[in-house]
């Protein structure tokens, strides 16, 4: 059992120089059972779920942003979040995790700019509803607010750390560019089997 599973909120840098860092950008997810791995991400209005199985010692993180819900039905936009969560959970289950043991921390969903639609809150609402619906174990985290966040997550230990960033931080002004995005909802025709 992992009694040490906890979320830390830090105002300092606190980066561990010995850890093998894997940075997750929007649309990506990563799962690991390597105790030296620390998963990191930078969040504005996006949300990251950090999920951990304390018995199997496996965990992972995703990073997703729902498309702006103004252009279609809610369920149409939920697909991207559901898919991102499913990929992460299935990745943990494939490594030996069990659904009924999954602890979840949620981060992100900030409203960085007052004049824009509060998509961050919608992302946060979705993530919280997903955890409830799937009966996963909520462990806390930090959602909404007005500041960007740098997140570190140790997937084997089940330990998360958050650093709040100012709007002038270079990491906020120039976030890492995604190398891949979630597959298009129209991507189903790229393999001819039928």
């Amino acid at each position, binding site marked *: 059992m992992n009694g040490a599973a906890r979320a830390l909120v830090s105002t300092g840098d606190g980066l561990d120089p010995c850890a093998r860092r894997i940075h997750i950008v929007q649309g990506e997810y990563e799962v690991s059972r390597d105790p030296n791995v620390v998963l990191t991400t930078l969040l504005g209005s996006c949300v990251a779920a950090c999920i951990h199985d304390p018995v199997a010692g496996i965990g992972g993180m995703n990073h997703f942003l729902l498309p702006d819900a103004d252009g279609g039905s809610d*369920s*149409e936009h*939920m*697909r*991207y979040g*559901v*898919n991102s*969560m*499913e*990929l992460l*959970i*299935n990745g943990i*289950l*494939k490594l030996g995790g069990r*659904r009924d043991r999954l602890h979840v921390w949620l981060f992100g969903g900030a409203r960085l700019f007052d004049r824009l639609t509060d998509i961050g809150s919608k992302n946060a609402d979705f993530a919280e509803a*997903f955890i409830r*619906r*799937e*009966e996963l174990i909520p462990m806390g985290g930090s959602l909404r607010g007005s500041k960007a966040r740098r997140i570190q997550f140790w997937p084997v230990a089940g330990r998360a750390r958050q650093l709040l960033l100012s709007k002038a931080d270079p990491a906020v002004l120039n976030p890492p560019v995604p190398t891949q995005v*979630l*597959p298009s*909802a*129209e*991507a*189903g025709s*790229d*393999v001819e*089997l*039928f």
Partner: protein
Amino acid sequence: MPAAKNISVMIADDQASMRSLIRNSLEQIGFVDIREARDGEECLRGVITRPANLVISDFNMPNLDGIGLLRSIRVHPPTSKIAFIMLTGRTDIELLKRAKEYGVNNYVVKPFTVAGLKERIEAVFGKLS
């Protein structure tokens, strides 16, 4: 031209959110008789008790996964003719090839649109009214 309202569907997925999305999509297309199962075993019991015209199943499920469910449905005479559509991620191509060997009728890549799902169903049943 078959009517969606006359086609009974069983959804098999271990994730409640995904089942809800599929159900919502099917209702938008016009399906009415929709049942849900949380894994392959529950789905198999369900279609043996009351056959469905179409099973839409995830690959990754506990107890009995999508491939196991497909094989079980195909070898059981009362259920062997049920149309079977597999839900998959983009990385499941090898599994899809296995599914085709076992008689899957079509597949849908997640995340999918209502139009995309309808297209795949119509490829199996013909144009829906």
